[in-house]
């Protein structure tokens, strides 16, 4: 069970203001803040200095496992464990095994990538606290946890107000 963090949250009404706020929050030296939005925002990764997702490496690794796992399965069952002569074809009939290898490549890659997303996002989360009900609908927020560098409630609240936040509050996230 994940433990939630406490801190300050500023609620914003537009996409432009949240991007500006994210840049500013980062400039102020905060590192562990979260920018919350109802949909992915173009340019948000740059604003928050988020590195490119590492999920593709998982995908590639799992794809290789699926590919060679498929080869191993078909080879071992058809040519080693109980080799049966089917229509005079070679026991190790690679072209016929390619569809199996291909499908297993896709299956392993897809499911492992989803597993990686779950890991990366800490999902599933049971009943996580919600800063504002509109954050999955029409509003945006920046949340700064109280363990971040230079956390100071009055300074943060002032900064959010200056950036045009419609609401500033203490929150659990």
């Amino acid at each position, binding site marked *: 069970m994940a433990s939630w963090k406490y801190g300050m949250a500023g609620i914003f009404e537009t996409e432009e203001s949240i991007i500006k706020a*994210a840049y500013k929050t980062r400039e102020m030296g905060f590192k562990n803040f*979260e*920018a*919350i939005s*109802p*949909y*992915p*925002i*173009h340019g*948000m*990764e740059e604003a*928050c200095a*988020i590195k*490119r*997702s590492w*999920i*593709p490496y998982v*995908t590639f690794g799992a794809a290789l496992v699926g590919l060679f796992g498929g080869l191993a*399965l*078909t080879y071992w*069952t*058809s040519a080693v*464990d*109980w080799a*049966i002569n*089917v*229509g005079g*074809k070679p026991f190790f009939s690679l072209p*016929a095994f390619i*569809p*199996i290898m*291909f*499908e*297993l490549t*896709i*299956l392993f*890659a*897809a*499911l492992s*990538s*989803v597993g*990686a*997303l*779950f890991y*990366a*996002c*800490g*999902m*599933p*989360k*049971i*009943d*996580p606290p*919600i800063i504002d*009900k*509109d*954050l*999955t*609908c*029409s509003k945006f927020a920046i949340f700064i946890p109280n363990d971040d560098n230079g956390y100071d409630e009055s300074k943060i609240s002032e900064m959010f107000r200056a950036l045009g936040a419609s609401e500033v509050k203490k929150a659990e996230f």
Partner: protein
Amino acid sequence: MIKRNQLVLGNKSLKQITEDIVAPLERLPSKGWLGMFLSAKALFLFYIIAIAIVVSTGMGLLGVNHPVGWGTMIITFVFWIGIGHAGTLISAVLFLFRQKWRTSVARTAEAMTVFAVMTAGLFPLMHTGRPWLDFWLFPYPNQRGPLWVNFRSPLLWDVFAVSTYATVSMVFWYIGLVPDFATIRDRAKNNIRRIVYGALSLGWRGTAKNWSHYEMLYLLLAGLSTPLVLSVHTIVSFDFAVSNLPGWHTTIFPPYFVAGAIFSGFGMVVTLMTLVRIGFPEFKDYVTIDHMEVMNKIIMTTGLMVGYAYGSEFFIAWYSGNAYERYAFINRAMGPYAWSYWIMISCNVIIPQLFWFRKFRRSIPVMFVVSIFVNIGMWFERFVITVTSLHRDFMPSNWGMYAWSRYDTAILVGSFGMFLTLFLLYLRLFPAISIAEVKPVKNVGYEGGHH
């Protein structure tokens, strides 16, 4: 610069978009929905009874016999699995091509894929005749040796292709739904709704870090689904093409099947979307006439590809100089099953030509009727391929007809009951348009809209 048409009409705010899309979930069902649901449900129950009779009595109730050993089950399997392909094409291939119009139809098209594959998947399982032994299809360690499955058989490739396709398309669809479930959770007025959608949303929070991973995953799944969808119908076509039967043993089958699958799938998407637009009028601002027109263009294009395949197949049958191959095709067009061949040609090649005219492409009644013809035509295409090739092969002493029985009709018609029951439930329980994907494109075509 060319001015783009608006993707979302009415210059909506973010809140309005959410409200419009979740409206069908949050109000009581309309009479129209209830009527359709009860009819679909009744048909589904009828289907279950028909399956129970066929499974308990035996496959002999259907028209399959020597020489036509593949009948309604296989035809309808290929039909439904083909329907599924348009959903993946819209959700994955058009995503890779950055086609923004796909956002409003992707969710429903994907749902159609999932339900069509579920409907399709039952057929080969029942066609085995002893469905309680279907686990034999998978390679698992057993006490008979272990005796393994035959990996050289296209039928086994199909087991892997269809089960992978079902799994991946379901996961892709679900991942797309996660942020929208969170939206519904946060709007929920009563506790049960909050708990159910909260569980479905897996605790999604929408932080920038989450979105960054999420978008990457979405791209990866789209990239994986694209070759997957092509492989699935390719492998389905191998079920036929790898055999030695005249009319089946052709290299054109994989691309021909894939084009036909996309064609039939878009036919079904248009049929369903016209109905969804009527049932949920607020969706007309999201699934606009422009969206429908684009899909009709795809129907026409793929219809032409299918028509080209019919012609090319015929030409090659003659050009090959192989007497059996030639006969198979002459028999298709002029033999005892000529009626089915000409239904196929009229529905798939001739009728979609109406879409050359802009007026027809943008007319809801016209596109509805055409899409129904496409659905009928594509079922008959599979009928033609399966039955006419089998019923007269090399030796006239081995010729026969398919003895269509009322159980064939029951199985075919009943499968629509299963599909429609699932689809109608989906429309009431899940957001039928992707809320999180529509929001970023809401400014397309407006003054000052970016991209």
